[in-house]
């Protein structure tokens, strides 16, 4: 037997592989990013044959896994919740067409949000697509549900979603497992155009078939021990019951155990869709009121149709935004208990401490680009050459360029380019030549940059696009990109240079520069500006190429340049505003800015930026 202290994402990987998963695809995104690397780790340690790939985006990941699932194999694709938006087109159709093997879509939610654009609830996507969804409450259950999801999918020939919340993905728990192997079927694709290439007439039939599957699964979900169950005592009536799923279930369970409350029954719904109608009805009959605790939206609450009996978000008892942290749940519960005249729980903690901490005026810690980050140099040069531009940007570490005034918009993956062309057209329509500089990372460009760039070139938009190429997908934990040509399992793939893709999109102006060399970067940006403005010009693309300092410490800073700040510094604040390096800090004692040696990366870029020339090599 082997043992490990696994991340929830590792537990999901273990469960998928124990469930016989032969193909796993993914695009990284917090909180899902570690699932595929954990799969790769198990594939190596357990000597498995499972195929793994970092796909270029979530839709690509889903389609690739789907093809395996209609070849009789067991497949999974993993992504974050907003990634499922990208893959939604595939998901909706795959639900109708079904599978011959198994397809599990792991879509990780981010209540909070901690590292996402939205707090959207994947369970609602499951409802929209009409596919079953499982909602684990902790890593242990995530492992079991990953296996269950594969079995359900295979049995009912339907894609199944596993929806872990961030507190499952990034929780850690001790696990043990026995040696296992993945022995699945060989690929067989039986041609059946009426299903696999169904026209609308056949889609109607597929829809009916899907509805029949859901009706059967709903019945199965009525009696899914350990997943959907309640702890009612027969012939007992309760003034209040709790209905909970996912992470909030585990919190309520711990709260009741700690405060020894056995008077309030819980209906656990770890498989909330298709809704287990009979089980829910049984529970509601025994309770005068029920309180629904679920993340992040109202799914269970919508299905419990008795508005007089059901308390939750719709009744105003549960907050509609933010994470249902244990403290929030404790407060909500006590509020409801008091309202209903039931003894509240003794909640520990001292209310005065919040006020005390607030009055300390602790520094707000906003995330910043790392010391030595090449993006910082790029944003500095961009601001210098185009101070009045609209700065459209995108999803990645470089969103933090907003601290340097280099990011005005961040909509979704790919919108750095598409919003740039949109702004161009909106202003051009009025005869206004609005300067626009778009920024986008290498991985994001491969994910969803090309369609937007093709569109912009084709429709005659004009702007500067700076591709921030750091040779990795940095924010999500250093996954390789197609330009690097290293595959998910560490093997060598075919590297696809960014400049070839950009040229293929029809761009005529392409320059590559190392942004650490701010002077050259500035010169090229001026050239790009001229190209955008010239009558036969167009879109100008600058590839700012320098390795990520975290992923490639030695390669990123081959020559260490320790710096110091001289007394020429008059604390004008320019470097803090425009360069915002956390290693440059105002020091009240010496009366000007100084270098925090313990975090300085010795990149030496800041020696190029001070208007007084006060930052120099030591």
């Amino acid at each position, binding site marked *: 037997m082997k043992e490990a202290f696994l991340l929830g994402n590792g537990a999901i990987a273990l469960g998928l592989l124990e469930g016989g998963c032969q193909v796993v695809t993914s695009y990284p995104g917090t909180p899902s*990013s570690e699932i595929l690397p954990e799969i790769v780790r198990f594939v190596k340690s357990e000597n498995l044959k499972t195929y793994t790939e970092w796909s270029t985006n979530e839709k690509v990941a889903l389609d690739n896994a789907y093809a395996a699932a209609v070849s009789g194999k067991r497949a999974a694709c993993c992504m974050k919740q907003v990634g499922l938006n990208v893959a939604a087109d595939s998901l909706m159709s795959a639900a109708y067409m079904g599978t011959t093997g198994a397809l599990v879509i792991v879509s990780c939610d981010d209540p909070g949000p901690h590292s996402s654009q939205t707090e959207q609830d994947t369970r609602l996507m499951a409802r929209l697509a009409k596919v079953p969804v499982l909602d684990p409450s902790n890593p242990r259950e995530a492992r079991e549900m990953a296996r269950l999801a594969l079995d359900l999918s295979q049995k009912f020939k339907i894609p199944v979603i596993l929806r872990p919340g961030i507190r499952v993905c990034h929780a850690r*728990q001790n696990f043990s497992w026995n040696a296992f192997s993945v022995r699945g079927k060989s690929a067989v694709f039986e041609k059946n155009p009426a299903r696999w290439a169904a026209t609308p007439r056949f889609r109607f039939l597929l829809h009916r078939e899907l509805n029949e599957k859901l009706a059967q699964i709903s019945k199965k979900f009525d009696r899914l021990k350990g997943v959907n169950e309640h702890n009612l005592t027969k012939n007992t009536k309760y003034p209040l019951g709790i209905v909970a799923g996912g992470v909030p279930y585990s919190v309520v369970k711990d709260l009741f155990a700690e405060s020894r409350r056995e008077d309030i029954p819980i209906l656990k719904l770890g498989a909330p869709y298709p809704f287990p109608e009979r089980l829910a009805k049984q529970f509601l009959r025994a309770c005068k009121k029920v309180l629904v605790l679920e993340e992040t939206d109202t799914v269970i609450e919508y299905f419990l149709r008795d508005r007089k009996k059901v308390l939750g978000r719709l009744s105003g008892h549960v907050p509609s935004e933010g994470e249902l942290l244990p403290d929030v749940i404790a407060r909500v519960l006590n509020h409801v208990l008091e309202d209903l005249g039931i003894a509240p729980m003794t909640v*520990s903690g001292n209310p005065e401490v919040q006020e*005390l901490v607030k009055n*300390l005026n602790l520094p707000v810690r906003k*995330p910043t680009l790392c010391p030595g980050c090449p993006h910082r140099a790029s944003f500095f040069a961009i601001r210098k050459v185009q101070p009045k531009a609209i700065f459209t940007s995108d999803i990645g570490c470089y969103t933090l360029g907003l601290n340097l005034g280099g990011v005005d918009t961040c909509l979704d993956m790919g919108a750095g380019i598409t919003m740039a062309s949109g702004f161009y057209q909106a202003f051009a329509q009025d005869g206004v030549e609005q300067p626009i500089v778009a920024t986008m990372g290498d991985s994001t460009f491969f994910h969803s940059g090309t369609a937007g760039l093709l569109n912009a070139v084709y429709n005659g938009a004009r702007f500067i696009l700076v591709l921030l190429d750091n040779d990795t997908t940095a*924010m999500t934990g250093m996954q390789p990109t197609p330009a690097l040509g290293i595959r998910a399992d560490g093997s060598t793939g075919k590297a696809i240079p960014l400049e070839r893709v950009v040229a293929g999109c029809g761009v005529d102006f392409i320059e590559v520069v190392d942004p650490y060399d701010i002077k050259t970067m500035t010169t090229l940006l001026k050239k790009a500006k001229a190209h955008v403005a010239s009558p036969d010009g167009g879109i100008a693309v600058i590839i700012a190429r320098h390795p990520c300092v975290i992923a490639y410490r030695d390669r990123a800073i081959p020559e260490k340049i320790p710096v110091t700040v001289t007394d020429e510094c008059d604390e004008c604040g320019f470097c803090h505003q425009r360069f915002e390096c956390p290693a440059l800090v105002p020091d009240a004692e010496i009366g000007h800015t100084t270098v925090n040696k313990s975090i300085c990366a010795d990149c030496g870029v800041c020696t190029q930026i001070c208007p007084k020339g006060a930052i120099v090599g030591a």
Partner: protein
Amino acid sequence: MNTINFVLSGLGGQGILFLTRVLAQCALDKGIPVLGAETHGMAQRGGSVVSHLRTGDVESSLVREGTAHFLLALEENEAYRNLAVLAEKGTLCVNASGNPFPKNSVRPYLEKMKIQSRALPVGKIALQLNAPLAANSGLLGVFAALENAPFAKADIRATIARLSPKRFQALNLKVFDTCLEKASAV
């Protein structure tokens, strides 16, 4: 099995995850189940980082306000920021910068809640020992010196040795030993 709740706080890059791993492993080696929660993603880029760890039979990973038995902070302000998690009679270990700790405005609260605090400039000690990244091992030294520490000093030390990357192992242990000795002397 009695639950012990830990909260570990600091800044991105200070090695909170290593600190968490060591404590978790100490519990696991005693056969105690562990459930924890970590910070990943954007918050790691220099923001406040908090890690939760619960030992015993629990289902959920987050420590509620007023229920942490131990708060280990790699930075003073991050200790204050997370003060609310500490239970009555809880213990606070902090990497102090040199300012008196706790602040006068906080002292009455700690006294009222019977919270004991141990402050040691483990970051500075680590820096003096040429191991700027080993402040986390230093804080474990302060923790190991507590008379109510749930794990034996030797076990914590052995776990640091086992989980440290080879090139940092000797330095981590040196910082741990130094801080353990200084904290025990106080």
